[in-house]
């Protein structure tokens, strides 16, 4: 024992191995858990599939399953394919849960100690993001009357590979999102943006942007406006698209990689989808709302295939080469959210002015560039929603979620009709249960508590 006592200091030194460079560690320190927030993958979940069921997308000529099945609203679009969205979102939720739950007791490591609160706040923002996506994909749109009973997704806040949970209500999931975001915002250590321009790690701007989103989809326009304004107070700069060249030329300067998002002065919450499938065809419905000559959002985004004449998302040149897609939340979305709230709060001028500010950076100067401000609130709202659709096309599911919430409003509800590629047409009625994604058979088997979303044969 004496020997042991003498040896102890030396032992400590011996055992003090440089775990920080161990490539396969078990995370235990503040530093370890902090590093869990650095992963680029957190920002790279692919939500391509969410485009398929919307009115933005036509059935592509060379579809991949399950894209086709979702595009024309099959009862079982998954068949035997895995659901990457479900698995990936929960993968990151589990990582965030680990950070949130373990950080308070994690072993201190030098100067990293004071980053506990920051890391927890950032993890909560990320968790809120993924739950927002999940509840809107696998649950119905939020309706105050039924949200308490509508089935959302399993609400998992602990870490275990062993325990399965039933679906929480839409209300519960939304409340958790709000709680997480408010917790984050109440954290004094959380800066507006993470230092070193590291867009992977969200800041207060991201929390406010998400909060505005959440309130908007809950129909709480007052709070949504407040959050959006707060986000815009942090950052309100817009990129000018006006110098963007048409695709097929050498460099179009779009900011679609995560590294580029770092330099993008519009970004509040950075999210991209990597290796997105470019076989996406613009619907004629979507094309029809664009100024096809002057709107750079359109002209820099598509190519017409000389193979089949369809309008493809830029990136497809006779190939299956992947491209990146911006799925984040930026200044434009906050402006649109604010504009919508203003229009709904009977401030059409305020709303349209915001739209015009945005349009000035998107559309080459032309007589129709500025929208008239002498409109009714309802007219302004229509304008806002149309601008929203233009600006936020393909942005990680916003169109799908918008369709779901707007279908609840008799003024905006819409049936979608699509050619199935074989000369026939299929129609998705407003409010159809087929808007809600079904779970895969594998998910249902693995979690017996999971209740399937019903879908109907169209």
């Amino acid at each position, binding site marked *: 024992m004496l020997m042991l006592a003498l040896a102890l200091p030396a032992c400590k030194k011996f055992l003090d191995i440089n775990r920080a460079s161990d490539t396969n560690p078990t995370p235990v320190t503040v530093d370890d858990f902090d590093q869990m927030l650095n992963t680029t993958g957190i920002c790279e979940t692919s939500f391509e599939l969410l485009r398929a069921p919307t009115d933005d997308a036509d059935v592509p*000529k060379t579809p991949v399953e399950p894209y086709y099945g979702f595009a024309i609203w099959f009862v079982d679009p998954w068949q035997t394919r895995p659901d990457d969205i479900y698995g990936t979102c929960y993968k990151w939720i589990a990582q965030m849960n680990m950070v949130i739950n373990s950080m308070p007791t994690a072993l201190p490591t030098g100067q990293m100690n004071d980053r506990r609160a920051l890391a927890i706040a950032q993890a909560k923002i990320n968790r809120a993001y993924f739950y927002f996506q999940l509840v809107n994909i696998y649950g119905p749109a939020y309706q105050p009357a039924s949200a308490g009973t509508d089935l959302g997704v399993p609400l998992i806040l602990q870490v275990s590979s062993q325990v399965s949970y039933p679906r929480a209500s839409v209300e519960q999931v939304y409340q958790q999102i709000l709680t997480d975001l408010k917790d984050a915002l109440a954290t004094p250590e959380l800066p507006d943006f993470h230092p070193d321009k590291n867009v*992977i790690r969200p800041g207060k701007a991201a929390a406010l942007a998400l909060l505005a989103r959440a309130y908007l989809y809950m129909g709480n326009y007052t709070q949504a406006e407040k959050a959006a304004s707060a986000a815009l107070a942090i950052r309100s700069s817009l990129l000018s698209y006006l110098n963007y060249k048409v695709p097929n030329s050498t460099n179009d300067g779009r900011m679609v990689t995560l590294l580029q998002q770092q330099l993008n002065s519009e970004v509040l919450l950075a999210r991209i989808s990597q290796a997105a499938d470019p076989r996406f065809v613009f619907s004629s419905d979507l094309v029809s709302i664009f100024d096809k000559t002057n709107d750079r959002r359109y002209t820099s985004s598509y190519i017409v295939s000389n193979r089949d004449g369809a309008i493809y998302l830029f990136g497809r040149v006779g190939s299956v080469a992947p491209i990146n897609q911006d799925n984040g939340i930026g200044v434009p979305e906050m402006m649109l959210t604010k504009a919508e709230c203003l229009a709904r709060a009977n401030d059409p001028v305020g709303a349209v002015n915001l739209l015009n500010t945005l349009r000035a950076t998107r559309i080459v100067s032309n007589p129709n560039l500025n929208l008239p401000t002498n409109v009714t609130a309802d007219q302004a709202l229509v304008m806002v929603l149309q601008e929203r659709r233009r600006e936020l096309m393909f942005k990680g599911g916003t169109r799908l979620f918008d369709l779901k919430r707007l279908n609840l409003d008799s003024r905006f509800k819409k049936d979608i009709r699509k050619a199935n590629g074989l000369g026939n047409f299929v129609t998705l009625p407003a409010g159809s249960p087929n808007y809600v994604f079904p779970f895969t058979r594998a998910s249902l088997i693995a979690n017996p508590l999971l209740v399937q979303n019903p879908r109907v044969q169209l």
Partner: protein
Amino acid sequence: MNNFLSNDSIKLRLSARSHLGIGLLLVLLLLSVATFAQKITLNYQHAPLEQVLREIRKQSGYDIFFDQNLVNQQPPVAVKISNANVEEAMSSALKGLQLSFAINGRTISIKKPDKAVAATGKQQKITITGTVIDDNGLPLAGVSVSSATLKPVYTDGEGKFTLKDIDPLAVVHIAYTGKITVERTALSISLMAETLLETGSIDLDQTIIQGQRMAGKAPGTFKLDISHRKQQSVVQALEGTVPGLVIKSQRTTTTQLIYTSDGFGVPAGRYTREQLYNAAKAALGAYLDEAGLQNYVNSLINQGYSNGKTTSITTITNNGVIPELRGAGGFGAGNNAMLIVIDGFIQDSFPADYPMANVLSLEVIRDPAETIKWGPRAGNGVIIITTNGGQPGKLQMNYTSTFNFSGAPDNSAKALQRASTTQILDYEMEAYKFFPIAGAGRPDLVYGTSSVSQILLEKRRAGLITEAEFQSRWNLLSQLSNEDQYREQQRGIFSQNQNLNLSGGNKYHRFSLNGNYNTSHTEALENSNRIWGLNLREQVSLLKNKLQIGLQVNSSLNKGIAGTMLDPAELQPYQMLYKADGSYVYDYTKLFNQDAYTNLKTSYPGLQNYGYNPLEEARGTRMSNKGHDLNTSLNVNWKLLDGLTWSTNLQYTDKKNNGENLRQANTYAARELYNNYYAVSSIKEAYFPGSGIFVPTPLTPPVAYLPLGDIFQASQSTSNSTNLRTGITYNKVFNQKHALNVGLGFSAFKQLSRSSSDLPLYGYNSNTGLGTNLSLPNSNQILSNVLGAINFSPLIAPIPINRKPERNMSTNASLDYTYDGRLGLQAFYNESYMPISSADVYSSTRNYNAMASWALHKESFFKFPLISKLKLSAGFGEIKMASLPVNLPAVRVFQPNWGTTSLVVNGYNPIRQNGERIRNYDALLDLGMFKDVLQGQLNYRYNSMGVKNQVSGRISYHISKANYFNVPWVSNLMIEGFVSNISPAQALAQMMSTNSPLTGGGFSAATGNFDLGSLPEHIKNREISLRFGLWKDRLTVDSRYYNRSSSGMSNGTFQSDLSTGFAQRSLYSRMDNKGFELYLQGKIFQGDGFTWNSIINAAYNLNQAKDVLKPIYDPTTNYLMANRNGYALGSLWSFRWAGLDNKGNPQVFDPNGNKVSILSNQSTGISPLTNANENWIEYSGRTTAPWSGALIQEFGYKGFYARASLRFALGHVMRTYRPIMQAGSDKSSLIENRWRQPGDEAKTDIPGIIFLDAARTFAAQNSSNSIAPADFFRLNEIQLGYDVPAKWLTGKYVKSLNLALNLQNVALWTRNKLGIDPEAIMSNGKLLPRQPLRYGLALFVGL
């Protein structure tokens, strides 16, 4: 086992037969506690003589030999003496009895006077022979037996020795690699028979202490007879020689149905050809004429976009061969393999080709109580290889040279059931009716993978060639066969090994130097391997043997080129490798056909050829590796003072491997990569009217972004570890009554593994070792002719480095006190620390135990003559588990673009210790009855948590030693049984215990430096063995039944609920293994120079998965091979075959017994298999043989010997291959028997050709009709050898000479009708080339 290191549990057992004519005296050897004072006090009124003798032995420390029967016959004696010397005590004890005694050195012998021939005289010299066996009854080779007047001799491979002309009273030293020294008089050895000796000066009772710590030791070691095996490799030596050990090929194939994407805006398989056409017309009518539309539809169908619906993905994994013992021991990949230890150094993988010329002994450990010390990987048994240590003592030189050669394995179409050219062409002709190929009349423009014959058919259909032209070219094709060219590229398999062993030394210094040089090549092109090995063992005795230093260095350098195995199945049989002038013939089925390539070259002038040639590829690809492996071990044992020993063991290992992968510029791989980065910034897709084909046309001049040249990539991996164990032990007897053993130890372990790859160098110049700089574009929109927009990042992305440091440290202490041999107190304490973070925080696992014992039988009041031993012990202890966070296996990656480090957790393993304290209470009963003929130990342990009740124990009944046993022809009969129950916590303690010094010095060979963070499985093992020898052991039988179950959480093997965020989860599961093993050895004939030995080894194994998750129906091979409760691992399930229907489609029986045709629905794309369930499948059998074993015959005549071994495996099944019978062609010769027209279904069960339908293929390939019995008998080996008689060598430098000739894979008998070698088949039934007949030649020279 590492002889030098270990004396942990090795005990010498000497069995000897004297040539004096005393014969087999059954004697009991009583060993002394080392002491020099010998004043004896005795006071007995009416005591059995034996009891008195025991007391004398105890007090004097002298060994006393006596004939048990003789002593038992004596009446009780009365003795009363005090402070007498030994002679006086003996005289008093034997007073009035017809017995005499003799004291020689420290040995007392008791005899009837008339038979005490040698007891007193020096007049007569004797010859002693003996066998040195270890605690498990296995012979020990290389044990030195010597006396002061005679040169030492060494035990041979069977542990036997002979000392001639020795004075009966001379002291004989028996030393085992310098560690265990036993000194006895020659006489006493001559009297011994099956006597258990402990190491050096240790009291016999120590074995019981060991026994307690080991929770029941089992005779679980099997030592292989490796005489005459020098020319073989380790895998050959193991095959068929160990009951229950099976060498398994780890080549598995898994198939998954994947729904293909559709090329046409329709989901895969939902539409008929007609609907496709309509859709094409709607979309492309404006562009295409009628023919163009038809062709476009055809091209889509051919590319798998149409009615096929599904394609399958097949994955082949090949992990070489692994040894598996007693069936599988656990779940998970690679979990079944045994652990391999060479000279105490754990090997990462099974060194199948390790030359036996370098091997001294080969042992297999099966006892879980023993294997657990080697860590979790040893759960399925350990193979211990000890390399040549030579026979120290005098200068000796041994030279071994072996050559092995076999012809190339037969890879002909006939042998591997591959279709001939004619069969393939016939098949394609018919298939073409269903699948016109892509190209639609313009095969010259096709970007696709059509073979020459398919393009010919297409050209004929499109009218691009005349019928006559077609016929002539078709005929030409049908005459071609590449079989000969493939065979030409094959070489024979060759290996040679040269081994030189030099050993010698004197009293103070012994050494052995072993040099090994090995070269080999397989039939693979360019393959070559070279290994230089140097092993050194150095043992030094200093300070009058008080300081012993041993050094062991095993080092090797290896250099190899992987080479390429050319697979004739890769190409169509008519696709030649080279022309008559030697130039390569290109195959254009990889990406662009030849015409399309030519066409493309007009717009991309620098484009490299898309033709592929496997021979060019093999010659232009060079994967080589260079590495070294250094294992060193230093042992120091220093008797500092009387009883005080300091021991240190330092192990250091250093491994390094550098890989180099060079692809020459002319290889397809390099050309294709070049083409991919031969790109433009603007592209136009040109449409060719009437063809439905689009060809990219560059709008800007193409630029080569990748230099045209060789591609080189280097990779490195290193690993080094240091393990230090040191400690002092103190053994002393005070006042003859107080025996004290104390140990204190400390150990530290560190290891660092690192692996990395360099970025590939493009345009590599092997002279300068440099690549050409890449000219990366400054634009992100570069378009390749194939890839579309190019991502340049793979060319420059950093390759992550893997680095894994490990460290731990432990301290230990032990105390063992015995009073008067009757009362004992033992205690030990072990603590291990391991770091759990980058901070200086570590967790500790602690284990202490204390036990008190009382040897009742040594008390004077104990008067139960039947009971020779009764010892009661009770103790308690505690294991304090480490406090560990939940194990979250993670990957840490440096993200250079961001300047940050990221960490992603990809698993969740909840089985972690959390500072639990498990208290245990032990009760131990040690019983010997009928003069120890019946011995038993029973250990009951109650734990405060976890596995609450543990019962371990063993019982042995040596029936043939019993008094009443009087069957002359039964020379030995023994029943033994044991139960061991090792809880996970106890296993941890067991692993930790390997760090403490052993009583008397030295350390265990096993090093338990494993991650104490993961809990081992709970193992319960029950075993009964019956051993008997008949007719003076001419027939010996060792049979055992075992029943083992291991349970615990198995990690990462079951799919998880995805919402947990993890792909896999842990589940509690259990594996039961039951079986029977028999090892029978008969000396059928002996005498007159001729011997005939026969060995039968047989094993039956039943392994069952228990508590596994029920697999969920899924039409994949994984599902059909999944573990199921109550079934053996590696079992197969199949659909119930119901023959073909009248359209040539496979049918299976549904659960109601109805025949269901498996063809996907043409309008929904859904196959009957999609909606099937678990009731559609049936059990087909297991793929590992429950019955296995071998029959071995050995003959000897004078110097000649012969050996034949017949190996068998029975009771298992295999899945045979069924062809795909859909688009493309299948290369199996079974396509010949396909269904062609209605009515054929009565004759064949090979389906007809149809459109793509993976579900249909899946049913055809995985139904009960593809199951065949895999039973076989293989005449494995025939060996002939000759030991040149010593008299011929007299006067020469050569002291011994031996020559051996060896044939392997001689003959095979199988039960399946197809003539398939069940050991040369992949899990999907495809055949592999059989092991060819192999010739071996070996020469041994002793100098």
